[in-house]
């Protein structure tokens, strides 16, 4: 019968209209700014730098300024400058740290490649999305102070992944400690046997800087080429 298809279609819309008042499957809207949906754990948007402690973020950055992420970043939005001196990292080894670490979030496409290539678990994906600003360049260029977020924050946004990373780092730290212990034992043994003392001493890694210096003063990285206009 001509028109039966139309009537059938109208029945569907009527079912949806009525259903939207009592069936949550037919009314799926969320009134966004007032109500927010829960983000899935895997959600990613913009990278951040992981620090061990919340009180001393610049002293405990996991990043060692190896510049792998800078090289691999497809849109080239990461800018790193290595420090002149070294500080101990999570495993107690003396490492460089980034004197400058900038991410231009107006260019960043949140592809997560920096996170995948990082061998130190130092850069992870954030979950921020309400990041609108009023200036195009300056406010979206984040320096290392803005990028640094503590490990506890990482645990709060990606709990499963963070626990796995922490487990792996703890294992590495333990292995490093055991290695150091073994090296110390070897040294002691070498001291006991004076003949091989020189050989053992040269085998231990030489430390370039005996005391870790504090990172560069924050004032050194604040100004940007065009001074921020109001």
């Amino acid at each position, binding site marked *: 019968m*001509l*028109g*039966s*298809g*139309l009537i*059938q*279609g109208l*029945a*569907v*819309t009527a*079912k*949806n209209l009525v259903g939207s008042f009592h069936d949550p499957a037919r009314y*799926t809207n969320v009134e966004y700014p007032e109500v927010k949906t829960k983000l*899935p*754990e*895997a*959600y*990613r948007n913009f990278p951040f730098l992981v620090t061990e402690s919340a009180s001393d973020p610049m002293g405990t950055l996991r990043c060692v300024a190896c510049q*792998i992420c800078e090289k*691999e*970043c*497809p849109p080239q939005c990461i800018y790193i400058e290595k420090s002149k001196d070294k500080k101990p990292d999570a495993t107690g080894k003396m490492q460089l740290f980034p004197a400058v670490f900038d991410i231009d979030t107006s260019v960043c*496409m*949140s*592809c*997560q*490649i920096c996170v*995948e*290539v990082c061998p130190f678990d130092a850069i992870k*994906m954030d979950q921020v999305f309400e990041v609108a600003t009023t200036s195009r360049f300056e406010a979206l260029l984040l320096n290392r102070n803005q990028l640094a977020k503590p490990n506890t924050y990482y645990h709060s946004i990606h709990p499963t992944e963070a626990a796995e990373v922490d487990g792996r780092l703890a294992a590495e730290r333990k292995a490093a400690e055991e290695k150091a212990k073994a090296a110390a034992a070897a040294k002691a043994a070498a001291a006991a046997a004076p003949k091989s003392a020189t050989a053992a001493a040269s085998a231990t890694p030489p430390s370039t800087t005996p005391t870790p210096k504090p990172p560069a003063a924050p004032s050194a990285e604040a100004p940007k080429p065009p001074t921020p206009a109001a």
Partner: protein
Amino acid sequence: MSISDLSPLGAQGGSHVRAVHDEFHGDLLEVSMGPHHPSTHGVFRMIVTLDGETIVKLKPVFGYLHRNHEKLGENTSYLGSMPYTDRLDYLCSMTNNWAYAIAVEKLAGQPVPERAEYVRVILAEITRLLNHTCLAGFLMQDLGCSGTPLMYAFREREKILDLFESLSGSRMMCNYQRFGGCRVDPSADWLEGAKQLTDGYGQFLDEFEALLTGNEIIMARTQGTGVLSPELAVAAGVTGPMLRATGVNYDLRKTDAYGVYPRFDFRVPLGAHGDVYDRYMVRVLEMRESIKILQQALAGIPAGPIMDPKAKLRGFRPKAGEAYGRIEGPKGEIGFYLVSDGSPNPYRYRVRAPSFINLTILEDMCLGQTVADAVIILGSVDIVLGEVDR
């Protein structure tokens, strides 16, 4: 009254509407539809010459979204191009990723573990559901069914995007496939979610079809509109649902038998007339077949590694050579042609974009039809301008 009377600048001065004098046909009108026209699905322009309401000539104008994607691909590493492929056809990032991964794997001779192949099939078929559902919604919007079918389609799309987000971290720019596997192993919870979606999708399709398929107005508008002959479709390189709607049985899932598709039992729906209605119906039937594939894949997915242990993420340098890899994307054959000279970046990186090639026969389908039909013919081609202009 002609269109030139409606132009705010009149017949003389209008930049987008111009009268063309021809001694045989009287006044022909040249109308520029787009690039900023709601019916063109983005920034696409058609220069249409009209005799009254009838189209006598149609010239597509491309390039408004051109960003030289291929040059970008030559300037970044193989891995670095993966997130850019998301941005080609931004509705189907999972299949774009797969097509690129399959081309690079061919180039480097990289094997893929079985579980990853299953995950790829699952994601590709979910992408097909997503694309075809959206397309049906957009097509109805072009026909003038403002809102309702599109909103129903987007309600379902949201469920799929939530699945993608919980697996890859992003709703549309998934960046999920890697050379030699996939980035994250889907958890049992995720697979359960995909199973629920698959089981519920048939019911949604029943409802969607009850709304649209039998509708007399849709039939009257779309049957016999924009007819494409199988001979022309083959000669012009048209692929995907557009080709199958003309009755040519050609589906790369069957012919190339890539991935683990030969293990699944599914059929290839074919059209008979090659008109807009057939293109719509072929897509709806394809979704039903996709559900069948999904049910088999989700039931049979094996345990095991998701990445080949020898696959390299950094310092990936395939040795010199070239490869053309292609898969059956939701829009047609999406292929990547790569030439390597042994360096970390591809020497040549070419995208064979299905919607670009399907669009080249637009004029042949539109000749003799009315302006309003040109809009739905364009809608039935299923274009995404990010891919057309690259």
